């Protein structure tokens, strides 16, 4: 996939929607474009996290190990971001992610990501907005869970 096509995908990522074209291109250029074959892990639960992945093509499955075996919590597709929590705060991976079919991702390392945030504060604000809205969603879900 060419750089310009990658940028088109990045455009559709809500987190990056307000970010300038050139910056997205720089992000893509300084990141690796990787292919994971069907069943190959992007990362496993409990590992230290050093990169986030943006799905460019194909599907990945996010799942956690429980006493009853592994439970899939989500399937992610083109334009979704996975693994960003671990590179923002130093916690081990909270779930495992593997390719469902042949998947193409953009691997954004911690360094690249942090660089992006420090060099372009507007991205940081976008991230905050996104995280706040996720927190809000979680709060709503929690309230629903408690009341039901």
């Amino acid at each position: 996939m060419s750089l310009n096509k990658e940028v088109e995908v990045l455009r559709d990522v809500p987190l990056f929607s307000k970010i300038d074209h050139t910056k997205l291109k720089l992000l893509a250029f300084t990141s690796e474009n990787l292919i994971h074959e069907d069943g190959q892990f992007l990362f496993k639960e409990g590992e230290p996290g050093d990169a986030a992945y943006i799905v460019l093509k194909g599907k990945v499955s996010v799942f956690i190990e429980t006493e009853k075996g592994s439970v899939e919590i989500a399937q992610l597709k083109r334009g979704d971001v996975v693994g960003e929590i671990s590179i923002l705060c130093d916690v081990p991976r909270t779930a495992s992610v593997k390719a469902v079919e042949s998947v193409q991702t953009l691997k954004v390392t911690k360094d690249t990501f942090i660089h992006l945030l420090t060099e372009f504060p507007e991205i940081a604000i976008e991230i905050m907005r996104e995280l706040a809205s996720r927190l809000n969603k979680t709060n709503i879900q929690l309230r629903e869970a408690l009341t039901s």
Partner: protein
Amino acid sequence: MEKTLFKFIWRYSKRDQIILLILTAISFPFLYLSLDLPKTIINKAIGGKDVPEEIFGMTVDQIDYLLILSGVFLALVFVNGGFKFYVNVFRGQLGERMLRRLRYSLLARVLRFPLPQFKKVSQGEVIQMVNSEVEPLGGFVGDSIALPAFQGGTLLTILIFMFIQDWMLGLAAIALYPIQGYIIPKLQWHVNQLGKQRVRNVRVLAEKIGEAVSGIEEVHANDGARRILARFTERLGVIYGIRYEIFRRKFFIKFLNNFIAQLTPFFFYSIGGYLVIKGDLTFGALVAILAAYKDLSAPWKELLTYYQRLADSRIKYDQVIEQFDPQGIWPENYQMVEIESDFNLAGEVSAGNLSILDEESQPIVEKLSFDMGKSEHVALIGPSSGGKDLATILMARLLAPDSGQILVAGKQIADLPEAATGRRMGYIGPNAFVFNATLKENVLLGAMHRPISRDEELNEDLKNAQLSGNSLDDLASEWLDYKAIGVDSEESLKERLIQLLQVVDLDRDVYSMGLRSNLDGSDDEKLLEQILAARKKFRERLDKSDISNFVESFDKEVFNSNASVAENLLFGTPKGDRFNSDNIGTNVYVLEILEKVGLKDEFIRMGKDVASTMVELFADLPSDHEYFSQYSFISSEDLPEFQTLLARSERLGLDNMSTEDSNQFLSLPFKIIPARHRLDLISEDIQNRILEARKLFAEEIEDELRDEIEFFEAGYYNRSSSIQDNILFGKIASDRANAIEEVNHLVTEIIDQENLRPVIINAGLDSQAGLAGSRLSQGQRQKLSIARALLRRPDHLILNEATASLDSGSQTLVMSNLLSEMKGRNITWALQRASLAENFDRVLIFSGGQVVEDGSFKDLVKKEESVINDLLREE
């Protein structure tokens, strides 16, 4: 060391100086004759008075006589010139020999300095003194006795000649010498004092330069460059001032000398002329005197210069000697005495009443006593200033105690030569030093103490060395002590080295270095075959596995999207500079090939696209941003230029730009690795044309360029590429997740299957350690130093926080390896952490320069109130 320059000269060059003196003495009669002859020629042969009727029985007339005398004159010129030439060469050789001797003895002294001396003398100063300050001394030594004798003698000969001609004129010639002799030394004295100051200040400058270079990281990290420059400026200013003053004074002396020298002819013309007119002096005699006077000024000048050099050299000698004669310098036989071949130090250690004083004579350690049993493994722990490190340094006899003694195996180590302590013991300190050589050479240094064999007859170089009192050890002979290592052949040595690397946990690192290194010097065809076999096996295994597309193999007919455009075009490894990534875009032959396949314009167009992408991506970044070196095709310095070029190409169109401008774009596409950079510029059509260019490039290359590249050939080992690249024979796919790890894993598997690991470790051992081991980490340097000490199987291994830079996993491994390696022999180990002492036979706890606790780890820990428990709690 001789206290004065002349004692040094006399002691080491007596014979040569006497020869010089004799040669000089022999030359004088000829000189006298050559002075006297002109008078005879003018008065007798030309003047026609007293022409002899016959010479040696042959009748001669006036013309014959003139020709004969002129011939004799010519012969004398030859003889005098010949003497001068011979004497000069002899003198020069003598001077060089003495310089060599002086330098050698200074260097030998540096190696015998007691260690605290190195706190007082900096590296810069030592280099300055040995390299440049003694240099003029060499020239002076050759001249020291012969020159005054020769020039003095010449002067005297000429004077005698003058006095014989006419005592009044002789007197006139030297009338002003007493004045010169009185004033000049007085003036010279001031210059000498300035000279001394200059030497001192240049030394300080040398020290400051050394400091700035060693501390360069601190300078940058603390933004200290301007202050350093100001300091240099200050020093250079002082030196400038002194040098200017010296020149001013020197030239004044010169002026005075010249002036006085010009006064003398005045006497000749007036007094001499008067005498000739009066008839008291012949005309011929006056001409001869005038000619002689012309010759007189040269030796006189030489003598005066000699006097200045003498004073200069004395100062230099004194100032240098002072620095190289510190208190407590070790005697020469410490390093030169050999030990019996069965000598050993296996046994107990007992140290009694050791005291060490600091520079102000205050005790650092007082009455320290300790002992260790035979083959005991002892840990020394305690606070950092407690004395444990000093105990190890004293044991290794790197420092002599101010009082007290250490016995090892019943022998006073103070009396032992370094051959005993430096072979039967091994010491590794925290600042393990690695020399600028290969890793292997660094390890082998541990068993290279003296040449094992020596030729009966000294070779030419060593004969010369002997004449200068230098070392007679031939660097080219075998130094490695196989017996001490316990091996008997090159092969078993290799095995032993690998074992040692395993003991110090360095084998894996060296293996990786080996994989990345070239075997360019190897003549071992069998080995190359083996690696080629591994290449084949690797591809086979890869093809069968599910990661077959993780490596894109080199194929003459196929474009490799994981290799750069340059690599695709060359299809080989550049050997020299001409095809490397910096130059390929401007190489005439490459451009010619591009033109032939019609790619040149395409490259310019692609180059322009690359440039505009780079400008788009990187123009906003600060110019020192790390992304420039990591990702950009264009450096931050060149970026503005490309911005201008792009603007121009927009305005004029690529076709209308000057060739010079458009060629700037030409070099950019060579850097593209299509799979990694995803720039979408290398279409299939272009790939095909690059393949065409590849073919043409190999076909039409001229012999002269043929040596600049080694082509990829499936059936041949590529000596310009690393072992790893030779096995891969392709590029790791950059778009496959975990490709590098998976591929490396497979490579290692194949290597172990083919039993190539030892070979690769050996190749790794041949990699360079860099200046002061800079290519290795501090931890690796420490490991290498431990291997170096272990190599000769010492009776005592003494470690002073020698694994402090290792990560904890490696440290535990190395420690347990060493404890088992040294089973049955002594280990004394000053540890940085108390908890590490657990596996030792015995623990000594040092505090305040005393052993405060002594016993096994278990027993000591059991006690409620013990220092070791305090130390363990603090960790």
